[in-house]
Structures are given as structure tokens and as C-alpha cells.
């Protein structure tokens, strides 16, 4: 397109002789036609361990495959029909959604609060960063064990500090909440760092100008800080929703790979793995995994659509 117009221009007008650099640049872009070799190594791995399982999972979801893979029959939509009727599918999905609804607002609020405090203190910034972020570096299995211990009714730290005797882990009403608290403590550090980076990116002169115009601290916060954090907040919310819907590790470790009190903490991922590796129903497990994928994809595409419509709004 552009090359066509430039050759036309070159043949008709001949503004100047092409320099060596120009022709080299042309050769450079032409020589880079074979960039496929750069992408090849990644795509071999990606094809084997992402694309192939995706295709395979989709195929398996229409079969009655078991873990050993022999005697597989095509069963059409039977797995999906069964999933719709399966109470445990809806139950475990609801637990994951419930968990997401609790944990995402908590993380956003606490992370933002931490970031604002850490950003506005002058001393010990490194200390706050270390304290708030350190738990994020612990393995999920350790998180599960640690909070399993902290939530013990008679000799756990939580009840000791709060002066309670609540049996957090053995009653239905608090079982999932315990996982939420553990997750908040564990992962808030990452979002905190994202917010902190965004705060440090706001140009200082905006605040100085506002101060000269007589804006007080609250007004500066409302009209400068809040709008500048809009993008990062959207990103944090999206990342947390996607991660929270896939909750698995800390919940199963806290409840010793069981379903929790009155089956109140069995998460969706946990149920798919139980179907696949305990009941050996690989076909059925693949079908319900696909359901989770559809939900994740809807969230991801929804965010893209939101961003796009907002950009259009701005350009208008």
C-alpha cells in the first residue's frame, strides 16, 4: 500500500537518489520475512501443552473416556446434559463465585489503602513493601497449612488475638470466609505493588498546580488521584476475578483435600479434578472444565469490550 505510493512518487517525482541507508532499510525489512524461526520454539511448547490439551479436552468432553483412555465411546452431549443436572456442579461453581464476590472487593480496597499509605509516608518505604508483599512469596500449600493452624478454635492465633472461640473451620457459615481471609493476606501484596506503581506514575506537577489553585488535600485526591488510578483499578479487578474463579490450592490444603464442613468449600476446580482423578471420569471432567473456560472467556472478553468502548468514548 505505502510502498506502491512511494514507488509511484519515486518514478514520477524522483525527489532524491535513494541513499545507502534507505536501501539498507528496505533490505532490512525484507530480510526479516523469515521471522517464523523466532516464534517456532515457543509454538512447539505452546502447541504441545496448551493447544493440544485444549483440542483434546474438547474432544474428550463428548466421550465417556476414563483415565486409562481405553474403551472410549462417543456419547455426544450426554456429559453436558449431565453437568446441567448435576447439583455438585452448580454447588461448587457457586462456592467459587461466592469466594470471588467476597475476595475481590476486599483485595481492591485493602491494596489501595496500603498503597496510599505507603506512597505518602516519607520514611521506611522499603519496610512497608517488604511486610505487605512478603506473604505473596509463600507457596499456596504453606498458606493452607499456616491458616489451618491459625484458625484452630482453642489454640489458634486468630481466636487468641480476637478473644473468641469461633470454630472457623468446622462450621458452614465461616468455612469459606476463612479461605477468603487467608487469600487476602496472601495475595494482596501483588495488587498493592500495582497500585503503588500507578501512584508513583502520576506526574507531581499536577498536584503542585492544584495546590497553587487552592485545592485542599481531599480535592486533590478526588480530582487527580482517583481518575489516574482508574485504569489500574480495572486491571486489578479483572486479574483478581480471573484468578479467584480458579481458586483451588489454599482451599484444599486448608480442608485436607476434603469438601469442607457440610461440603461448603468444594471449589469448581476441585470438583473437576475429583471427577478426573478420583472418579476417573476424564470425559465428564473435561466437559465441566469447558464450562469454567466459557465463564473465564466471558469475563476476559467483557473486560476487552469495556476497555474498547471506553476508548471510543474518550476519542469521541
Amino acid at each position, binding site marked *: 500500500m505505502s510502498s506502491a505510493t512511494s514507488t509511484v512518487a519515486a518514478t514520477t517525482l524522483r525527489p532524491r537518489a535513494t541513499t*545507502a541507508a534507505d536501501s539498507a532499510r528496505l533490505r532490512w525489512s525484507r530480510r526479516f520475512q523469515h521471522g517464523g524461526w523466532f516464534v517456532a520454539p515457543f509454538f512447539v511448547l505452546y502447541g504441545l*501443552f496448551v493447544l493440544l490439551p485444549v483440542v*483434546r479436552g474438547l474432544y474428550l468432553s463428548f466421550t465417556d473416556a476414563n483415565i486409562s483412555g481405553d474403551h472410549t465411546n462417543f456419547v455426544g452431549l450426554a456429559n453436558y446434559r449431565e453437568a446441567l443436572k448435576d447439583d455438585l456442579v452448580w454447588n461448587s461453581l457457586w462456592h467459587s463465585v461466592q469466594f470471588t464476590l467476597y475476595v475481590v472487593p476486599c483485595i481492591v480496597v485493602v491494596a489501595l489503602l496500603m498503597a496510599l499509605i505507603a506512597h505518602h509516608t516519607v520514611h*521506611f518505604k522499603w519496610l512497608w513493601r*517488604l511486610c505487605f508483599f512478603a506473604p505473596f*512469596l509463600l507457596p499456596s500449600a504453606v498458606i493452607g497449612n499456616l491458616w489451618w493452624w491459625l484458625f484452630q478454635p482453642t489454640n489458634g492465633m486468630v481466636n487468641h488475638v480476637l478473644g473468641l472461640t469461633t470454630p472457623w473451620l468446622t462450621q458452614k457459615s465461616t468455612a469459606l470466609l476463612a479461605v477468603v481471609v487467608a487469600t487476602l493476606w496472601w495475595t494482596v501484596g501483588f495488587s498493592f505493588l500495582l497500585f503503588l506503581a500507578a501512584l508513583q506514575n502520576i506526574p507531581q506537577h499536577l498536584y503542585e498546580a492544584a495546590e497553587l489553585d487552592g485545592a485542599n488535600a481531599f480535592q486533590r485526591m478526588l480530582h487527580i488521584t482517583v481518575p489516574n488510578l482508574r485504569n489500574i483499578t480495572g486491571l486489578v479487578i479483572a486479574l483478581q476475578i480471573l484468578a479467584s474463579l480458579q481458586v483451588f490450592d489454599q482451599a484444599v490444603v486448608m480442608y485436607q483435600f476434603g469438601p469442607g464442613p457440610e461440603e461448603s468449600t468444594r471449589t469448581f*476446580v476441585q470438583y473437576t479434578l475429583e471427577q478426573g482423578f478420583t472418579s476417573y471420569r476424564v470425559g465428564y*471432567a473435561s466437559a465441566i472444565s469447558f464450562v469454567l473456560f466459557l465463564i473465564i472467556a466471558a469475563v*476476559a472478553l467483557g473486560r476487552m469490550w469495556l476497555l474498547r468502548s471506553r476508548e471510543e468514548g474518550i476519542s469521541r
Partner: protein
Amino acid sequence: MTTPSPTLRKPRSTWTPAQIALTVVALALSVIWMAPLAWALSTSLKTPAESVASPHWIPKDFTLDSWRKVFEAGNIPNWFVNSLVVSVCVTFIVLLVASLAGYGFARTEFRGKSVLMAVTMAGLMFSPAILGVPLFTTVQSLGMVDTYWGMILPQCAPAAMVYILYKFFQSLPRELEEAAFIDGAGRWRIFFTLVLPLSKPSLSAVGIFTFIASWNNFLWPYMVTNNPDLMTMPNGIATVQNAFGIVWPQLMAGGLIAGLPLIVVFVFFQSQIVRGVAHTGLAGQ
């Protein structure tokens, strides 16, 4: 760690009443956030009997028995080495393939590029949690169950890292590469001797995150191996909790041993990690 932007521009004492109040609040939050770890440390230094007695912070019979027992249980050093081997291999392979692919997408032309780009971006939505079962059967058919390769390779195709590096390479000014090309360098040489050294901040961010994710990865090793000799730190600790019966001090000691290496790494590489998070966050906006 120096922050170049002075938050206070008046050269007077920085300990204004507002600063003191903020620092006190930050300190209180930090204490709350550190309390669980302090409790774990305190528990690990108690005798099993004392740990289940009425809760208190300072161990009365201070003892290192639990730490010793955990180490003597035989498997911890072994799991530690497994974790290290797996995480180092994963990090190295990811850095290599993701930087090559990111550069390929950002700077080169080839047939089908846009299709491959779209397919890679779609991969952002497939996590091991969703792919668990079919990924396991795939690895099974490749004969990689209960092997190091089976643990390492499936963690080596992260679309997200390709995306981060792609964004970064796009932001590099083209003139440098063009100049190098005019001087007669081939594109592989340009990539390895010019582009990679320029991308140190991005590469270290990707490397650090990959290492953390791999070191802490629980789900995949849990699926792919039941062999205690192959287990990584998090898995060993999670599965063996049931084998021992519950001895809280040992459980906490084991957890701290699994968690400490990364916290030590963080203390040393704090600035890179913080910058890395910032970098990825800004790429994601």
C-alpha cells in the same frame, strides 16, 4: 532504594504530625501482616505439647527440635533440590522462548503472523486449572508422567510472558536495530547482542515472576507425580502433612523452610521485583 521524586518539597523536618500519624498506621498494618508469620516461627520453636497448650507468643521451652526433625525426615533437602531444578529450568526455558517469540511478533514478518498472534492471545485464557485433566492425559500420552520433563515443560509456554515482552520490544526504538543492520549484523546477532542487553529490566521481571510462579506451583506437580522422590517443596509439605499426623511445630518449620528462600531473594532483589510488577502492570493497562 531511593525514590527520585521528593514527596515533600519544603526543606524542614519530615516528621510532621501527618507523617507521624501515617507512619503509625503503616506500622500497625505491617505488624498485623507479619503476625501470622511470627506465630508460625513461634510455633516452630515450641515443643509439640507446648504448641497445643493455651496460646502464647514466646516459647517457654525454646527448642530447635522441630526444625531438626523436619530436616531429618529425609525428604526436605531432596524436595528442595527438585524445586530448584524445576524452577531454574522453567525460568531459563521461558526466558529464551518467550523473548524469541516476543521479538518475532514485534519485529519480524512471516506468513500467518497475525493468526499466530491471535492464537497466542487466546492462550491467556487457558490456565492449568482449566486444562488440568486433558493436560494430564496429554502428558501421559507423551510418557512424561512422574518425570522431571513432565513437571518442567508444561510450565514453559506462558502466553502472558510473550505478551509482556512483545509490548516491550515494540517500545524499543527501531533506529538502533536498523543502524546495526546497516553495519552488517544479521538479525540473530542483533537480537542476542543488541536487543537482549537492552531488555534487562523486562527480562528480569519476567524471569523473577516465572521463578516465583514455578517455585510455588502446587497444582501441576500435584497432578503429575505421586512419587515422593520427585515432589517439589510445596507438594511434599502439603501431602506429607497427613502422613505424619499433625505435629504443628514441624508443620510450621516445614512451611517456613519452603517459604524462606523466596523471601530472602525478595530482600535482595526488592527493587527489581517492585519495578517488575510496575512494568507488567503498566503493560497490562
